[in-house]
């Protein structure tokens, strides 16, 4: 069963050309997330990888209702969310929790850990006040924090402990799914390893599903069952993690996977134009920097179903595509 179904999600930002100027220059709309569709199966982790600025966090924030999508639908446990309805947002937040990237910025510096975690309980209204303390202690233990942390202020905790507090705040009201927005990118490798281990334990213990964002391919490979690759707001490739990592189809994914730093020393590759804005308004967003781009790429390619759950948004794989009702619907949209 799918816990999350996202179809044609589009989030638009108003952008201004000349910053710091009072005049609006080149003001316009920009689709920071464009026509993104994916599924998250119950009990699985869906990983989303991409460069800085590709829109990963925007999708995460949209999933918990912090950004309103301009188009597209988000279904949580089969129920379509209308982002304008307060009841729907409450339903969304009761089922989906979020851990943000920045452990310093996401915890109120003036509250003690206990109060930070309690806020979620108060907001949910499903808990009796008398049960607050026992529930908080239970969840603190669950995420691997010492009881003594409860009276501490965020500044007295280490980076790993702060992320565990965020995790406790998200889980104190039981959730079906967690959105994890680069939860370990600010941590040392050894602390990161401990937090990743905890996340995997919690997932099986509480039957959680994760939406996991990171730019670290080693981490996402280790954490996720399926994987989506995002480039400038567009999904380039979606599939089972093993397939996408070992047999990438889209030229961008190929490039990404060849750049993964390992313990072994690899000769650095020349990287040209990868991070420069190279999108053309109608065509494939990657076409300007793609080494294999050809004429057809000026039209934005649809997602092609390549079998075994792997999809790629690239005309190179048009012939290998398996026609399926799903892919047909995507290309028509």
């Amino acid at each position: 069963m799918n816990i999350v179904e996202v179809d044609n999600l589009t989030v638009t930002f108003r952008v201004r050309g000349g910053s710091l100027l009072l005049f609006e220059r080149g003001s316009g709309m920009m689709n920071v997330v464009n026509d993104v569709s994916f599924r998250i199966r119950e009990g699985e982790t869906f990983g989303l990888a991409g460069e800085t600025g590709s829109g990963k966090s925007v999708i995460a924030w949209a999933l918990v209702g912090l950004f309103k999508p301009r188009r597209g639908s988000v279904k949580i446990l089969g129920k379509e969310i209308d982002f304008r309805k307060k009841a729907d947002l409450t339903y969304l937040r009761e089922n989906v929790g979020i851990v943000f990237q920045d452990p310093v910025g996401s915890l109120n510096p003036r509250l003690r850990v206990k109060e930070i975690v309690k806020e979620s309980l108060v907001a949910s209204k499903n808990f009796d006040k008398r049960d607050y303390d026992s529930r908080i202690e239970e969840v603190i233990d669950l995420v691997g924090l010492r009881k003594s942390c409860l009276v501490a202020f965020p500044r007295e905790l280490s980076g790993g402990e702060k992320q565990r507090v965020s995790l406790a705040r998200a889980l104190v009201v039981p959730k079906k799914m967690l959105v994890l927005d680069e939860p370990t990118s600010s941590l040392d490798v050894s602390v990161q390893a401990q937090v990743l281990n905890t996340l995997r334990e919690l997932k099986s213990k509480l039957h959680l599903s994760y939406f996991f964002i990171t730019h670290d391919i080693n981490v996402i490979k280790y954490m996720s069952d399926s994987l989506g690759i995002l480039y400038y707001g567009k999904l380039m490739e979606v599939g089972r993690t093993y397939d996408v990592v070992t047999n990438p189809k889209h030229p961008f994914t190929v490039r990404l996977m060849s750049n993964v730093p390992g313990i072994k020393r690899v000769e650095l590759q020349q990287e040209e134009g990868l991070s420069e804005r190279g999108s053309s308004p109608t065509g494939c967003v990657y076409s300007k920097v793609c080494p294999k781009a050809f004429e057809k790429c000026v039209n934005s390619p649809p997602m092609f179903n390549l079998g075994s759950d792997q999809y790629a948004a690239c005309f190179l794989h048009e012939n290998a595509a398996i026609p399926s009702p799903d892919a047909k619907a995507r290309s028509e949209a």
Partner: protein
Amino acid sequence: MTESSDKITLENLLNVRGLTMDYASVDGRVRVLENVSLRMQKGEIVGIVGESGSGKTTLGLSIIGLLDKPPAEIINGSIIFEGNDLLKLDPIELPHYRGTGIGMVFQEALAALNPVYQTEAQLRESLEVLARAQKLSLTTEAEAKMMVDILKDLRLDNPEWVLKKYPHELSGGMRQRVSIAMAIVEKPRLLILDEVTTGLDVYVQNRILNILKDLNRRTGTTMMLITHDLMVASQICDRLYVMYAGRVMEEGKTDAILSNPKHPYTQKLFAAIPQGFVDSPPLPAPIGEPPDLRKLPTGCKFHPRCPFVMQKCKDIEPPVFNEDGRNVVCWLAEKT
């Protein structure tokens, strides 16, 4: 500053010997560096790796002499740069070394750059330092050309555009390259890079590492790369120093350390990097958090987290054992 230039042996550009340093805080004294020895040869890229709080940045700052004293207090040791002990130098002499002798790029480019000046003004400041040191007088045109050239060297596609921008208008990768430009335009003989790729994504990170490696090959600039990320260090460094709790735990050629880490701490750092897929076993993470420098254990400072701990480790801090040209501070390396 060059009266001792004849003393410079071509090989040793920097030689730190037994550097021991305290921070005197309100809660008491904290030993942040203990007997740190390090040498760098001309043209080398040396990596300093370790977790937060291991003393990497403190080491970098003490070499360039940017630590406030107090709270910092040097207890022992020497920092010999081009034959001169920087710690014994008259404070008036130090500015002659900064910038043109030893340059530094800081971790947070946004904090390191002045938010109210355009790139142009910030680079000009560096050029003035260079002009003073080399007794040049640069015309505005010459300055402009140098600025464009240095930004081009750092593979910024549109240098003229970047020169007119304020720090907040640039992306993280661009910003970091501007702060690297500020350091290298002064042509330092030693460049200290403190976590220059932290917070950037892998692609921009690779790009910056490429640029640094390329710069090292072309100009022979000696570099010290401070990072918590072993993978970053392993990409471009010739030699690595692994630090823990203010001490150097292991030192050696990058390839040798990568293929055969000897210190259990180095081994743990490697093991903590996720390698497998979702069905792989949990990561063998070191137990506990990085050490609290105020409450360091007796003996080897890593022993509470070490899987191979022996009674000896708890009692006596191990000395440096030299083994196949590598230095390891661990009792396991004794007489093997």
